[in-house]
């Protein structure tokens, strides 16, 4: 069998069902008597709704009901809530316009729901929806932040004049301006971070069910966090008390953040099921996902670094505009503020930092967290700016980073942007990455490529990120409306097997395997006798879900605490059974022993005794062996590392081929190395996708031009190389596992490594910066414009 505790690359339990087509995804779920819902969506970006004539649709064969926004409003259905409140520079709260489940009075983006048709079959619902007659008056659309902020621009929400949601900052502007005024040199960079569409392979789906007899509601949904959905939908939207609402997130086919949020369709099917007294099922079509799943990123920034003559970073000043889209999605306001600006120290000891962020409403799909959530934006800005400093000063790109690194003996390190890092060793991850990527041998490779007529470049990114979301009081003070602890209930059964009920929710991360490994490690229970249960609010006490690389750092730590309690209780039982004092009981390898003797009892002996408490300290201890722990982390965790991308460009086509990609990441304690590699590989693929291929594109009328997988370039196997992935870990000092999390680092460190490599490849063409995606057309234009310039010289 081999070792199956912490550190083992145990093969996954969940593969058995996935490989045989026996996964249980939401669209696989069919409830007896179910109806199908089709959501009619706005085909225009900005318009008033003068009226909706539903008569023809309602009269169509198979149609059971047609509902619009006013139907929901008439029953006091609440709007979709926002979970984080940001304050302006002057202390006033952000604009928080209503977000109705189905549009009322106005549509604000292509894809905005305007009605729902419920019919016996999906096709009937879809056909009937074409008969809805909607009377719109078009309004001018503001499809970009620039258009939305222009004077006289159309207003997306009356509550947000000038289309500004908030104008926030962090840092002391006067101090930073003073440093800049006295600096030897200021390096400035204007850059964007391209809007992305997460496109998990499983489209969103929801099935609402209502038990007429008990009054219980059940929602099956593609969610990363079923308890959060129960809380938000129950308390704020449908006004259903928690004990009457069960939310089940079964197998979920990828999320990357896009399945965190409470979406309209969840509320629609749950509410409608009670209205029509039959289950109601909805599944997105992919083009529907494009216009209804939260998008990611979409920043425009100006970044400035003040430096001295040696290239020491004296101060950083950043101004960012962040697109919120047409409505505030659940976590949106915190992404470009507390998950972004607080990361602007990165791995560097820059002493002063000032960042201001203006969040803007536009007539586009709402934007919210997508793998990395704010940290890819911060890292791209910082690592491109550092390369610009190298470019402008002539200082070597690696040397400039080394000079400014936070040294390994400086931890805990308090940054000027709120975060205090616990541990890290950036010199080591850099050194190992340089070796693994054969940085030293690159110039020879560049020369060899040139002989073949190709342009080779190499780029480096030394990043740090903050995850293991999050200490509740800290985020509460910053505007979060939720706690971010995690919950584990560990149940030892009478015959010694264990069930873990966790509030996290794996959607690809392999928790059924990795969390079981924690039990093998700490309780010594065999791997095949540990079961991990997640995703059902009826089974699990509470939880905040899986995102922000938190499941191991926070959820795993909750499990450790619960197992500590199990062991503590077990020791008392063992002491009684073995007639020893509890101080003399030791526990290791599934066994309680009396120190210095050969008297022992296994955990199974103890658990059987706990459930059949005959020879048992019944006056001091309740029967049973089950413990719950709620773990609130003391701080964020701080993975970091070094990514190196090597590209080869064909000058005749501008196509970029990523020939090598090397990652060396510090993720703290590794439970399953195979799973960590998989997470990093997947993140890198998304990062390369952002750098080279992906962009959500709107025209000036707010039409989503990249509206399907034909037009939005998803990375394919032939766009990507093999990856060299390694870890060099320093332990997290403040959680019992020492784990920092690894789910997002791949997507955070990689985009600037690729763009830095492309700029390096094109340096003879005078390229100092390139925004993403670095498409072949963009590169071809630079090369061929540059060629005529060079030829002329």
């Amino acid at each position, binding site marked *: 069998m081999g070792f199956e505790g912490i550190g083992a690359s145990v*093969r*996954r339990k*969940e*593969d058995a*069902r*996935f*490989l*045989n*087509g*026996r*996964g249980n*995804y939401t*669209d*696989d779920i069919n409830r007896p008597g179910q109806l199908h819902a089709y959501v009619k969506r706005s085909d225009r970006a900005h318009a008033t709704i003068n009226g909706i004539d539903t008569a023809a649709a309602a009269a169509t064969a198979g149609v059971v009901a047609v509902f619009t926004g006013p139907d929901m409003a008439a029953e006091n259905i609440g709007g979709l809530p926002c979970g984080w409140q940001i304050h302006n520079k002057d202390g006033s709260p952000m604009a928080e316009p209503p977000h109705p489940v189905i549009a009322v009075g106005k549509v604000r983006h292509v894809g905005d729901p305007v009605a729902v048709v419920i019919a016996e079959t999906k*096709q009937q619902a879809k056909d009937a929806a074409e008969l809805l007659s909607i009377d719109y008056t078009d309004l001018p659309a503001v499809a970009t932040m620039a258009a939305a902020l222009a004077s006289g621009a159309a207003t997306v929400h009356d509550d947000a004049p000038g289309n500004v949601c908030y104008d926030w900052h962090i840092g002391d502007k006067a101090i930073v301006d003073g440093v800049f005024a006295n600096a030897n040199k200021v390096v400035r960079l204007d850059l964007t971070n391209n809007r992305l569409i*997460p*496109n*998990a*392979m*499983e*489209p969103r789906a929801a099935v609402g069910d209502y038990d007429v007899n008990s009054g219980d509601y059940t929602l099956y949904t593609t969610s990363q966090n079923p308890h959060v959905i129960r809380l938000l939908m129950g308390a704020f939207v449908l006004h259903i008390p928690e004990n009457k609402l069960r939310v089940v997130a079964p*197998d*979920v*086919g*990828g999320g*990357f953040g896009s399945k965190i949020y409470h979406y309209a369709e969840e509320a629609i099917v749950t509410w409608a099921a009670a209205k029509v007294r039959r289950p109601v099922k909805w599944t997105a*079509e*992919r*083009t529907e996902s494009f216009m209804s799943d939260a998008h990611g990123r979409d920043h425009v920034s100006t970044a400035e670094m003040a430096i001295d003559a040696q290239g020491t970073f004296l101060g950083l000043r950043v101004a960012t505009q962040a697109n919120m889209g047409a409505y505030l999605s659940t976590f949106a306001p915190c992404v470009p503020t507390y998950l972004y600006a607080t990361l602007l120290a990165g791995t560097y000891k820059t002493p002063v930092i000032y960042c201001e962020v203006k969040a803007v409403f536009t007539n586009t799909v709402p934007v919210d967290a997508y793998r990395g959530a704010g940290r890819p934006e911060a890292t791209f800005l910082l690592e491109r700016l550092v390369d610009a400093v190298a470019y402008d000063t002539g200082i070597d790109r690696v040397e400039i980073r080394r000079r400014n690194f936070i040294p390994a003996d400086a931890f805990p390190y308090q940054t000027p942007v709120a975060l205090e890092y616990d541990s890290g060793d950036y010199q080591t991850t850099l050194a190992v990455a340089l070796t693994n990527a054969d940085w030293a041998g690159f110039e020879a490779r560049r020369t060899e490529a040139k002989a073949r007529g190709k342009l080779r470049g190499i780029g480096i990114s030394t990043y740090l990120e903050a995850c293991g979301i999050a200490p509740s009081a800290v985020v509460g003070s910053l505007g979060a409306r939720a706690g971010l602890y995690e919950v584990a209930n560990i149940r030892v059964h009478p015959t010694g097997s264990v069930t873990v009920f966790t509030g996290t929710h794996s*959607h*690809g*991360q*392999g928790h059924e395997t990795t969390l079981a490994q924690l039990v093998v490690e700490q309780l010594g229970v065999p791997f095949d006798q540990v079961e991990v249960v997640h995703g059902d609010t009826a089974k699990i006490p509470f939880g905040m879900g899986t995102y922000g690389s938190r499941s191991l750092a926070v959820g795993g730590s909750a499990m450790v605490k619960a197992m500590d309690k199990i062991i503590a209780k077990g020791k008392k039982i063992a002491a009684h059974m073995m007639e020893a004092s509890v101080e003399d009981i030791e526990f290791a390898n599934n066994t309680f022993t009396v120190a210095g003797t050969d008297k022992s009892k296994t955990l199974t002996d103890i658990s059987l005794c706990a459930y059949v408490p005959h020879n048992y300290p019944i006056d001091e201890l309740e029967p049973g062996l089950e413990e719950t722990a709620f773990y609130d982390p003391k701080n964020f965790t701080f993975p970091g590392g070094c990514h190196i991308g090597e590209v080869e460009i064909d000058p005749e086509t501008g196509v970029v081929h990523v020939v090598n990609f090397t990652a060396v990441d510090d993720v703290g304690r590794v439970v399953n190395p*195979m*799973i960590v*590699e*998989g997470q990093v*590989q*997947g*993140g*890198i*693929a*998304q990062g390369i996708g952002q750098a080279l291929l992906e962009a959500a594109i709107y025209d000036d009328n707010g039409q989503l031009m990249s509206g*399907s*997988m*034909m037009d939005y370039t*998803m*990375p*394919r*196997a*032939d766009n*990507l190389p*093999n*990856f060299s992935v390694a870890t060099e870990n320093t332990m997290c000092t403040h959680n019992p596992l020492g784990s920092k999390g690894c789910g997002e680092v*791949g997507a955070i460190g990689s985009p600037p490594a690729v763009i830095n490599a492309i700029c390096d490849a094109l340096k003879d063409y005078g390229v100092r910066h390139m925004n993403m995606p670095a498409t072949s057309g963009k590169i071809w234009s630079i090369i061929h414009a540059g060629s005529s310039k060079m030829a002329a010289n």
Partner: protein
Amino acid sequence: MPQVTLTVNGKQHTVEVENRTLLVEVLREKLALTGTHVGCDTSQCGACVVHVDGVSAKSCTMLAVQANGTSVLTIEGLAAADGTLHPMQEMFREHHALQCGFCTPGMVMSAIDLVNNYPGGITEQEIRDGLEGNLCRCTGYHNIVKAIAAAHPLMHGKA
């Protein structure tokens, strides 16, 4: 309404369909074989790949009536009756070539067809090019390529 007769995983079925019904809808909704997935609506993603008469086909881009009289193999029909996995399934597990599992049925079926077409051997580039019709958002393809390369000798009897 037309009737379609097809053999799926060795068992014959006759179902009533509309002209516009897709093969994937028959599999998922009429035959309760939900292992084959729908991930897109433009025939890009490959989550729906099955074998029709021994050759891979995107079941979302095939009408049920086109499948009349054919023999279809889905992910559910791959493993042996006693549960022994097909070498491709085994290698996907061994090499961690799946995470969320949603693309996996189509990926495995495509991969089997790909390896079938290269009896003499297959290079990494041929594998990557051959997977153009299958999207995965989780793995970055690195381990999928490894798994397919490892399955090749097992499938062509050279283990």
